[in-house]
């Protein structure tokens, strides 16, 4: 347990899902699922094991407890409700993943690199451990899991099965019913037959003839026959047979992939073989024939792992950018689970979307991802570059490098450039948030806004004033900064009323402009030119004053906020953090600190600086008006922190300790060089995990019908409403819609009117009305709806209807109680109408 009040660094997303193959839970009819449907997808994610719902794509549970990377997860073959997981911290844990409870912890001692289980092995599992005394040599050992009463057990009873195996879990596979085990490394294939205690070793030639590369990359075993499939670095797949003979072994070759085969998986009966690689195409081979194959292309990013569910109905692919795709047995894409997408390089920095409070950064190539911090999901991905991405080494791609939001999030500015150094092909795009489409729409595209790379970009943030005050400043390596303003479009034919154009170009001694920043009230603009910071009046564009702290170029600048708005903070390359007073135009204080990240909190005067010194990142939080930091945390994490962002909290958190008051209004997030997202939390682990377990309980209690799924979603979203008020537009509508849905579900099916009649009401309830329809009207419609249903069946059902009404009102709470009078009027009308309709019969 962590002592109360201590600040912990918590991983909250983006950690590599690619630690191990994902595992589908076995079919669990007792949960009320349809027969044979795998309900959960279990996935190793950093130090955690994540449980996803296959049907709703949601993260249901995060099982933490390992102290290092989780390297393997396998279902307990004797109890499908349990899961084994292995980790680099040297322990194997047995989990009840339905409840997220660790049942047992077996301490093995050395690093565990992969985990395998066998149904035939009674009480032992197989792990890959490094060989003692030799570097980069690994062995496969079987671990006898001791039976004991306690939770923490020691399992030191190891017996070596194979020596000299590969470190990746893809390099070992167990054959049909555990009769043999196969390991591949470099160009050697080893097969060990357990019963006959026979070890066969086969080697391919190391020569790289005709562009071939025989090194093994992965291995899979046929579930019913003696057949081994191996993937190779040159894209070939070999199918080995007759491998119990030293000499008379034989193999056939399948070749479609043009680059390394990343993973292979056999279908349940072994008639189909799935393979995937960097092409992001899933290939399905039938009957081991090279002529019959099917493809599932455009999966988005290279495939890292492929796993099959135990009933063979689903398979899932893990991608290198942390996406999970679930694919039907007929090779149709079903759904994808995506958290923080890992991009090649986060050039945009961490930006917070003011509208959704989502974190915005580079996603898949050329896209901007909006990542919801609350539920670790990607909200959406905005295609900025709008070009087909072609995977090929050495090809120059266009990518997104800068992004900025206006204060309300109505405008989004993006900069994209191609990778070529000499001619970057710059494009500045301005996007307007379209309320009805609920998305950003391209407003203006400016080709070559600067003659060289754009280094920084910011909007003038002014909440109070209207759109007139909105200006955008870009700084470029072509030694100028440019000011862009909105102008009314004079052309009546034009589809939009405003567009952006350049208003002012400023420069300073022909130095390269590196950073820009507006003061809080928008009256001053600070632009750094190499070693100098210049301050400009934003009304007249006059140069007010300059600051300089040689030696070293300015790396970051920002203005102080609120009470500290008279200060300007700058960090230089030579490890100085300077604070200038704008009133006296003098240096207030400076500190020797190698700052890599300088991030002001938008809602308070605090500024966070992250330094990188002798391979550790340290966090300093300070107020500009005093040189002494409020908070220091040394050795924040092992990885280098590249980016940070303050995300305002929806409601201020109750923080007991004086020391952490700076975390009250907003939360600080970091992105490390391995693209893991971290945050600082004062809560203990247990507190953080409670909401997700509730969700699991809700899901279990529901019978599975399409309606219940729908209902489940609504309920969850309502539940989230309590936590998250960030997306008012979408949620309000759905709240109104839910009575309609509930009414539909509560009425017995045999008294419901025809579906065509219900359809319009149902769809209307889901639509986002243009002018905000009052809640009363919607509720009335629902009432009508239920009325009809009752009346169609019987006339004497008035009392029943009353009951229905009250129950309904209970559900709706206060809102509908007020409406009851007007409703009754409506009801009476309808009743009359309906009677006449029935008498017509």
């Amino acid at each position, binding site marked *: 347990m962590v002592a109360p009040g201590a600040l912990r660094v918590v991983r909250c997303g983006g950690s590599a899902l690619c630690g191990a193959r994902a595992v589908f839970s076995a079919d669990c009819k007792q949960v009320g699922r349809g027969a044979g449907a795998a309900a959960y997808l279990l996935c190793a994610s950093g130090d955690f094991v994540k449980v996803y719902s296959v049907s709703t794509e949601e993260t249901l549970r995060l099982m933490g407890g390992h102290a290092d990377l989780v390297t393997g997860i396998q279902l307990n073959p004797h109890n499908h409700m349990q899961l084994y997981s292995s980790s680099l911290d040297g322990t194997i844990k047995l989990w009840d993943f339905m409840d997220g409870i660790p049942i047992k912890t077996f301490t093995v001692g050395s690093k565990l690199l992969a985990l395998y289980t066998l149904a035939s092995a009674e009480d032992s599992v197989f792990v890959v451990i490094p060989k003692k005394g030799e570097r980069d040599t690994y062995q496969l050992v079987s671990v006898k899991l001791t039976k004991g009463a306690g939770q923490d057990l020691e399992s030191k009873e190891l017996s070596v099965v194979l020596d000299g195996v590969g470190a990746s879990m893809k390099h070992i596979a167990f054959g*049909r019913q555990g*009769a*043999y085990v196969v390991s591949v490394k470099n160009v050697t294939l080893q097969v060990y*037959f357990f019963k006959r205690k026979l070890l066969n070793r086969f080697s391919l030639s190391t020569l790289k003839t005709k562009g071939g590369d025989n090194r093994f990359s992965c291995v899979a075993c046929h579930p*019913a*026959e*003696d057949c081994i499939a191996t993937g190779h670095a040159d894209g070939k797949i070999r199918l080995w*047979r*007759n491998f*119990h*003979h030293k*000499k*008379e*072994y*034989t*193999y*056939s*070759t399948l070749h479609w992939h043009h680059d390394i085969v990343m993973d292979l998986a056999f279908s349940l009966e072994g008639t189909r073989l799935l393979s995937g690689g960097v092409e992001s195409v899933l290939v399905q081979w039938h009957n*081991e*024939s090279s*002529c*019959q194959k099917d493809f599932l292309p455009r999966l988005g990013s290279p495939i890292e792992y492929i796993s099959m569910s135990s009933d063979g109905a689903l398979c899932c692919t893990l991608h290198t950018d942390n996406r999970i795709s679930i694919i039907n047995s007929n090779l149709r894409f079903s759904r994808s689970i995506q958290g923080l997408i890992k991009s090649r390089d986060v050039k945009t920095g961490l930006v917070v979307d003011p509208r959704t409070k989502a974190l915005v950064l580079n996603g898949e190539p050329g896209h901007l991802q909006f990542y919801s911090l609350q539920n670790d999901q990607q909200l959406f991905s905005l295609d900025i570059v709008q070009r087909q991405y072609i995977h090929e080494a050495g090809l120059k791609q266009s990518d997104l490098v800068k992004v900025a939001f206006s204060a309300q999030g109505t405008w989004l500015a993006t900069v994209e450039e191609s990778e070529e150094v000499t001619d970057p092909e710059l494009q500045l795009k301005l996007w307007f948030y379209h309320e009805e489409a609920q998305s950003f729409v391209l407003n203006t595209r400016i080709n070559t806004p600067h003659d060289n790379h754009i280094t920084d970009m910011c909007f003038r943030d002014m909440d109070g004033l209207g759109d007139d005050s909105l200006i955008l400043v870009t700084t470029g390596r072509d030694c100028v900064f440019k000011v862009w303003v909105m102008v009314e479009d004079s052309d009546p034919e034009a589809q939009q009323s405003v567009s952006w154009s350049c208003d002012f170009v400023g420069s300073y001694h022909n130095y390269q402009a590196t950073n820009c920043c507006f003061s809080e009230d928008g009256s001053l603009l600070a632009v750094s030119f190499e070693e100098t910071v210049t301050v400009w009046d934003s009304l007249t564009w006059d140069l007010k004053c300059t600051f300089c702290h040689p030696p070293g170029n300015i790396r970051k600048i920002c203005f102080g906020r609120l009470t500290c708005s008279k200060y300007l903070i700058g960090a230089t390359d030579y490890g100085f953090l300077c604070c200038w007073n704008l009133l006296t135009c003098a240096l207030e204080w400076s500190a020797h600190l190698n700052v890599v990240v300088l991030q002001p909190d938008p809602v308070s005067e605090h500024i966070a600086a992250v330094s990188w010194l002798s391979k550790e990142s340290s966090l300093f939080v300070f107020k500009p008006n005093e040189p002494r930091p409020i908070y220091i945390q040394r050795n924040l994490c092992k990885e280098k922190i590249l980016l940070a962002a303050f995300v305002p909290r929806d409601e201020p958190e109750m923080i007991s300790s004086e020391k952490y008051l700076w975390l009250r209004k907003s939360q600080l997030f970091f992105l490390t060089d391995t693209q893991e997202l971290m945050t600082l939390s004062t809560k203990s682990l247990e507190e953080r995990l409670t909401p997700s377990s509730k969700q699991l309980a809700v899901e279990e209690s529901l019978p599975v019908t399409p309606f219940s799924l729908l209902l489940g979603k609504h309920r969850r979203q309502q539940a989230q409403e309590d936590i998250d008020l960030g997306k008012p537009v979408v949620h309000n509508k759905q709240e109104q819609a839910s009575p309609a849905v509930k009414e539909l579900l509560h009425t017995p099916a045999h008294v419901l009117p025809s579906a065509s009649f219900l359809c319009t009401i149902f769809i209307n309830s889901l639509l986002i009305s243009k002018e905000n329809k009052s809640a009363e009207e919607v509720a009335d419609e629902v009432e009508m709806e239920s009325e009809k249903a009752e009346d169609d069946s019987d006339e004497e059902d008035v009392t029943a209807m009353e009951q229905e009404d009250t129950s309904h009102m209970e559900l709706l709470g206060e809102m509908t109680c007020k409406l009851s009078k007007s409703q009754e009027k409506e009801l009476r009308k309808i009743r009359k109408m309906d009677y006449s309709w029935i008498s017509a019969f």
Partner: protein
Amino acid sequence: MGEFEVHRVRFFGLVPAGVRCLACHPRGARLALARTDGAVEVYNFAANYFQEKVIPGHEARAVESLCWAAGDRLFGAGLSGDITEYDLSGLRAARGVDGGGGPIWSMVANGSGTQLAIGCEDGSVKIFQVIPGGIQFERNLDRRKGRVLCLSWQPSGTHIVAGSIDFFRVINVASGQTVQRIMVNHQVEKAKRECVVWAIALLSSGTVVSADSFGRVQFWDWEQGTLAESHTISTSAALSLAVSEREDSIIVGTSTGATYQLQLLPVKLGGLEKRWVRTKPFQFHSHDVRAVAHSPSALISGGLDAQLVIRPLMEKVQKKGYDAVLRKFTFPHRRLVSCARKARLLLFQFSQYLELWRLGSTEETGKDGEVLPLCRMPEHLVQLKSKGPEHIYCSCVSPCGTWVGYSTASRFQLYRVRCDGDGVSLRKV
């Protein structure tokens, strides 16, 4: 070291003839090969795959099929409609017997080598008895419409399977009746194209293996008339097929130049259930592989690109050595070029004519590896056409360049060459 002038002779336009069929001696010691120009060659496996015998071609004789029978006797049959026995000691075609059914597409010998069966254009299958000093017509089997493209005799000798276009049939040798007729193209939907059964084999277990123009190798149970397995090995036609003696391995040649091996492998370790699995592909040829053979330790293939490839099976070779090396016979083994040293003349031998060339010369000298400019271009002096349908067997030019001789299977001719200035004259001696 002395200095040498190296001539790069790029004017010998020899077009080698493609390999049409192969026949492995039942005991695996010899391999007979027929080329598209009618030449027959015999290779001796024991003597390092030495080309032992060559019987030159004949204009009127196109060999479609070869087989060994009655010990070491070699028979060939072709589109001329004749069955020819080759005199391997005299290196000539010895006796010919008319098959009596039009062009012969295929010929097989039975297990003991006492009988030959031929498949003819008119759809008949005829049995010939091999007697000392020749062959004798024995009887006709059931005749059906459609040319018989391939034949296979069951090792036990009771049945013959005959492949035609779109179907194959199984014939009982004793009664001469067709006992089963199987359509091979019924599985291909709306097949407008005809499906040619290019090669067929009848295994002792009663399985019929067929290779067809859709690139499929199919395994049939002929008694039930059912398809047991189908392997689509290629998008182009499968042209040839050979089964190993132990019937656990099959080699298939396709029209893309690739050959494939199929092996009968146990599905599970220690289990009895076995299945044919396509294992190794080989791409040695650039054109159609018209002929394949399966020796106990090697896969042999010959194609229209005139190459003969012997690929040893590593698992069958006991030790690493000369036998374990892949062999390609690309160049002719006989001497086709003769040189008149003093007169600087070259004589090239083609199948039907000879060409006499004078080498170019230079007056300059240079260092090692330098290309010297020619002051006199090589000159085509004379082309000498042989008479008659027989192909030239060997030829020679005398060192002084005045005598040219060649021989065919039946004749020897000697010519005197006289060069006077630009004119060249030939006189038959």
